[in-house]
Structure formats: structure tokens, C-alpha cells
């Protein structure tokens, strides 16, 4: 083997490994399917790696799920059918956008409920504060009012 072909072999070997590591690509019969494929791979969570969606993950399970997704899309299944299929096997866990209902209703409603509770607390605090001030003013008797006025008068004359 001469020097040039040896260099060529090395060069090919250097580029071969990253090429294999690339995420596989799928051909779609309809560009619209590809758009749905992209959005579904973003929404489905990798069951093994947990904090990645299957679009980002290179785990074998994600590869299998992407392959399954491609088959399902080409078979003409709707997004809901595909998501139901995945949830039936991997549980609600597999969706980054959980459905509205069941246990996940807590997830959807908790922020709104917490906000309402915070407003409630704020209202109560403000009301009890304003009540305290008005009650404080009203509690001055006529005698005390007169004394306050005379004191204020006196301050006014002194200055």
C-alpha cells in the first residue's frame, strides 16, 4: 500500500464514525407528514433518558420510537391515534404536553389555583390593613381629638 492510499484510508476512517453517529433520516411521501413528524418527535419524551425528547435523543429506544412514528405516519394515523398508542405503552410520562384529564389535571390547574390563592391572600391582607387604619382613626375620642389639635397648633406656633 502506498502512502497516498494509506492517507486516504485514514481520512475515510476519520469521517466514517461521525457519519454513523448521525440521527437517521426518513423519507416522507408528503411534506406535511414530515412537519408532523418533527412536531411529534419534539413532543414525545424518551422513556430511557427522561429529560430529552425523542428528536434529541440518540438512545436505541428513541431510534425505535422514531422508526415506529415514521411507520405510523406513513400508514395514515392521526396525531391523536399515535399519541394514544404511545401512552398506552409508556404511560402519560411519554408526553411533554400531557392530556387534560385524569391525574394530569392537577398539573394543568395548579398554576391557576395557586394564582387565585395568592390573590385571595393579598385581598385579605389589604382589607384587614385598611380596617386597622380606619379603626385607629375612629378610636380617638373627642377629648383626644381636641388635644391633638392643640398640640398641632402649638407646633405650628413654635416654628
Amino acid at each position, binding site marked *: 500500500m502506498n502512502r497516498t492510499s494509506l492517507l486516504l484510508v485514514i481520512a475515510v476512517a476519520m469521517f466514517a464514525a461521525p457519519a454513523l453517529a448521525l440521527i437517521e433520516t426518513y423519507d416522507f411521501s408528503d411534506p406535511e407528514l414530515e412537519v408532523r413528524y418533527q412536531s411529534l418527535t419534539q413532543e414525545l419524551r424518551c422513556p430511557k433518558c427522561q429529560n430529552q425528547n425523542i428528536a434529541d435523543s440518540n438512545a436505541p429506544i428513541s431510534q425505535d420510537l422514531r422508526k415506529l412514528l415514521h411507520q405510523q405516519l406513513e400508514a395514515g394515523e392521526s396525531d391523536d391515534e399515535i399519541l394514544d398508542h404511545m401512552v398506552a*405503552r409508556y*404511560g402519560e410520562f411519554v408526553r411533554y404536553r400531557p392530556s387534560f384529564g385524569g391525574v394530569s389535571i392537577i398539573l394543568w390547574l395548579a398554576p391557576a389555583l395557586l394564582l387565585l390563592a395568592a390573590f385571595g391572600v393579598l385581598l385579605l391582607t389589604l382589607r384587614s390593613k385598611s380596617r386597622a387604619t380606619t379603626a385607629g382613626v375612629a378610636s380617638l375620642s373627642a377629648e383626644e381629638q381636641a388635644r391633638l389639635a392643640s398640640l398641632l397648633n402649638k407646633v405650628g406656633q413654635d416654628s
Partner: protein
Amino acid sequence: MAPRLKLFLPLILFAMLAITLFRGLSLDPSEMPSALIDRPFPAFNLTGLGQSRPLSQADLEGQVSLVNVWATWCVACRVEHPYLNQLSQQGVPLFGLNYKDNDADAQRWLDELGNPYRFNIADRDGTLGLDLGVYGAPETYLVDATGVIRYRHVGVVDEGVWSALLEPLYQTLTEENDTQ
């Protein structure tokens, strides 16, 4: 609320937070309940390892059994294998699901380390694994006599897991099956 009680509010909130976080320390976030609990074992039609007879979900029925998902590329499977041999010697019916593996490697594994399984389903492409919701080998499913999945354990089955989690349920189900 009495003003004195109000002073304790931050302490109470802190205690609640501390309890929640402390509980979080002992939880395993990678542990998920299977979506298939109390559902029938998914239908399949695959060949067995080292046999030509096609296997289906009906072959798992008739007794309470464990279905163990394993592969030769799975390091933890090698760790649990001796314990599976022991369980099978105790008479626990074990079925293997050889997941995304190569038949020759799997056969060599069984020849070298012993074969605790009544038969092995060869899931070469992982299609049954997808239907089962397998996300990492080893996984072990407790299947009752009517072919319904009753429990799933993800990770190595050892003495502790067997006696704490699997055996009590296995015994109850076996007794139920015997009285019927």
C-alpha cells in the same frame, strides 16, 4: 388568626417543604409504573430462540410466571442471571424475552451461564419490546395465569427484590389460581 400563631407560619411552611424534599431524596425518578399493569400481555407472534415453533401470548398462560427481558449486550442481565437460575430451580416458571439481540450470542450465553427459561421469545427487532413499553433491560414482568400483567420490575432481580416485591404477589396469585 392569632398574631402569635402567625409567627409560626414560616416554620410550618419550612417543615412542609423539608418533608417533601426529604421524601424526594429516597425516590428514584427513573422508576415508572408500567402502563400495562392489569392489562393483557400484548399479542405477539415470534419464533423462539433455538426452536422453529412460533410462539404467541397464549403460550404464557396457564400458570403465574415471570417474563424476563434480557439481552447479551445488557450488563445488568449478567448480574441477575445466577439469581434467575436459582429461582427456576425453586420451581418459579420463567420465560425469557431476548430483546434486540443476536440469536447465536444469546444461545452461547445460555449454554455458558445456564438456561433458567422454559422458552425464549426472540424479539430481534424489538417490536414486542415496544408494545410492552420496555425502556431498558433487564425488566421483569409478573404475568398471571390468564396472561394479564400484574407487576413490572425495572432493573436487576435479586434476593431482596424477589422477597420484598415479587414473591408476595406471586404467592397470592398462585394461591388464587389454585383455588379456582
